[in-house]
């Protein structure tokens, strides 16, 4: 058994290729001039430059947080490249103008950028290093008043919306990495769904880091106006490189009265090799605000990649009767580390939140769930249900749980359930005795374990997630 396991462990990360493309890159390092240069390249209005600089000045006074249960050498922020864009990047008249090399990259990743080829009915925005390279189905969506474009384009075409909502959920001063992102973010996706409109298709962004020593700092802002609803998916990959690369993104969601936002992530950044060399530092701030009554925000994440993951997609339940959900599968294998979870902050009355977290640890991976359920004094009748399950594969990995509960209202009801299990030789032998090989056996056990989360994912994503999970865990038992 162990021999086949060895070969599987060492299987290549198949998204690890590099696209050879000429790039417009700023020299490494960070100062106000770099921020001004990024802002100028993007022809931004004055308010945005000011907003960036304010965040930068705040960032200078902050220190990198070290409370997460992860270990890494300190990052030299002056060695990072803060802007890199494919040279050919110009405002695109149509998708046909996307650089063929970039188009090839996305084809290789299985993300078609040509609309007529898309069968799945998913609109895609593709972000390559620092910039968006193309958004599909734009016209079709525009007919319904839905704006789905790159963040840069939103700044040019809809500055009033950007100015109104940017930083309202994650302020520029929120935390160290959010502040850094606010100062240097180069692109990302922007979605606005007008009053009463249900977005007819899933919107999706595919993030790709290509250039070396480049940080990716994208910023996504999604606004669902009153009674609107939208389902948004994001996927991520990066080349296999020996250096660690920083990915410090910010995602802000705003759901107004009666609106629903469903945000799904399948994160598969390069995780580093078996000795822990290379890989992405995925330090991300994601937060949604249920700003009006009966709003609903649902996060679903499948985290299989990255050397280190550090993120807590959260919901601020401000509107009465609003709903927050967090469904998560986090997998660590090799030397990966993850410290992830959520915050549910109950401000409004009768607000409800659900947290389902499935942590899988294999190899020498370390997996931590960290969650905060906070019920504020005004939140009469608030309810939370938390279920936090860990699965261990092998003897070298670790699972940790840090649940924080802070209840300031007597009428609130908060439930927490937790379990830890281990995939044993006996479970695998049982399935092998029924004719399944080791890979399929592990994949079946793990997929069963994650079922409650996978059923929250849109269909195509669920299939991709299941496959990814299989690949991430191949050879983890031996």
């Amino acid at each position, binding site marked *: 058994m162990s021999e086949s396991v060895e070969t599987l462990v060492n299987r290549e990360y198949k998204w690890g290729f590099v696209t050879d493309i000429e790039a417009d890159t700023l020299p490494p390092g960070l100062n106000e001039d770099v921020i001004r240069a990024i802002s100028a390249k993007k022809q931004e209005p004055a308010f945005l430059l000011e907003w960036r600089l304010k965040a930068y000045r705040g960032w200078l006074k902050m220190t990198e947080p070290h409370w997460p249960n992860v270990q890494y050498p300190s990052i030299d922020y002056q060695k990072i490249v803060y802007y890199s864009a494919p040279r050919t990047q110009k405002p695109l008249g149509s998708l046909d103008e996307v650089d063929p090399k970039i188009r090839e990259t996305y084809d290789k990743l299985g993300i078609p950028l040509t609309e007529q080829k898309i069968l799945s009915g998913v609109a895609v925005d593709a972000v390559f290093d620092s910039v968006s390279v193309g958004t599909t189905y734009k016209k079709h969506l525009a007919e319904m008043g839905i704006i789905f474009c790159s963040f840069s384009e939103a700044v040019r075409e809809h500055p009033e919306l950007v100015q109104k909502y940017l930083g309202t959920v994650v302020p520029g001063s929120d935390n160290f990495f959010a502040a850094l992102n606010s100062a240097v973010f180069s692109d990302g996706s922007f979605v606005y769904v007008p009053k009463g409109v249900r977005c007819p298709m899933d919107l999706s962004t595919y993030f790709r880091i290509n250039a070396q020593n480049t940080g990716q700092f994208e910023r996504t802002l999604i606004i669902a106006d009153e009674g609107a609803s939208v389902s948004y998916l994001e996927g991520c990959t990066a080349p296999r490189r020996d250096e660690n690369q920083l990915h410090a993104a910010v995602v802000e969601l705003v759901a107004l009265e009666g609106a629903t936002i469903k945000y799904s992530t399948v994160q598969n950044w390069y995780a580093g090799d078996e000795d822990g060399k290379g890989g992405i530092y995925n330090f991300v701030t994601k937060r949604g605000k249920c700003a009006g009554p009966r709003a609903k925000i649902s996060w679903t994440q499948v985290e299989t990649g990255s050397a280190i993951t550090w993120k807590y997609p959260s919901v601020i339940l401000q509107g009465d009767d609003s709903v927050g959900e967090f469904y998560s599968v986090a997998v660590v294998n090799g030397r990966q580390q993850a410290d992830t979870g959520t915050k549910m902050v109950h401000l409004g009355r009768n607000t409800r939140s659900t947290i389902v977290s499935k942590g899988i640890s294999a190899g020498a991976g370390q997996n931590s769930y960290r969650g905060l359920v906070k019920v504020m004094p005004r939140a009469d009748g608030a309810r939370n249900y938390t279920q936090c399950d860990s699965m261990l594969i092998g003897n070298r990995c670790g699972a940790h749980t840090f649940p924080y509960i802070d209840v300031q209202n007597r009428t609130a009801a908060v439930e927490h359930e937790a379990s830890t299990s281990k995939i044993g030789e006996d479970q695998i*032998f*049982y399935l*092998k*005795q*029924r*004719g*399944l090989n*080791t890979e*399929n056996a592990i994949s079946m056990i793990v997929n069963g374990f*994650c079922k409650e989360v996978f059923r929250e994912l849109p269909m195509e994503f669920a299939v991709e997630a299941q496959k990814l999970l299989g690949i991430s865990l191949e050879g983890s038992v031996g």
Partner: protein
Amino acid sequence: MAPLLEIKDLHASVGDKEILKGINLTVNAGEVHAIMGPNGSGKSTLAQVIAGHPAYTVTGGEIRYLDQDLTDMDPEERAQAGVFLAFQYPVEIPGVTNAYFLRSAYNEIRKARGLEEVDPIDFVDLLEEKLKVVEWGPDIMQRAVNSGFSGGEKKRNEILQMAVLEPKLALLDETDSGLDIDALRIVANGVNALKRPDNAYVVVTHYQRLLNHIVPDFVHVLADGQIVKSGGKELALELESKGYEWLTGVAEATAS
């Protein structure tokens, strides 16, 4: 015709501890063999070793099955070749429905034999027949594999799997332990219904009572890792009245 299973001078250990110390056993198609013996004699180990449990190392001898050497094969290859082990302690697989699990197993085995996979709809038809063997309705298929099953349900589920996978060689490892009279009857009836001239059963049991329902052609007594006595079904009755001591004495004498 070659025997279905032919075990010659089989030795197996866990770590440094030798548990099987030279087993010889021949099983032909159409036969039912009972393996009996006191606790710790190696009965369950024998079943697990035939199925290929990785905790055991074969240190000598051979296990031939349809003229193949089983000891070189992975557990899944043995299963695909028609070896089935009904577990003493079936494992639970939360979140995976019985239907999905059984269909996956069925299709893996079909694939290995170069047959086409069966789709979920055809599989439901096939299941309908098989469920009758264990007197179950279709609801059981939507429950997670063995999760929250009673001891009796788990054993019935093993027999259901056996009915679906149609093995040539079925090893029943203490399938009777922990069963009440009704469950015992259902399990035994299931086994009897599945008996064919081209398959064989090796039934590992501690007690005679199962053998009232599943009548063996041969009974073997295992003690300290060796078969110390073989006989017909009447041997089981003799053991029931006399216990194992008179035979374990023989085992010690042979060993010294």
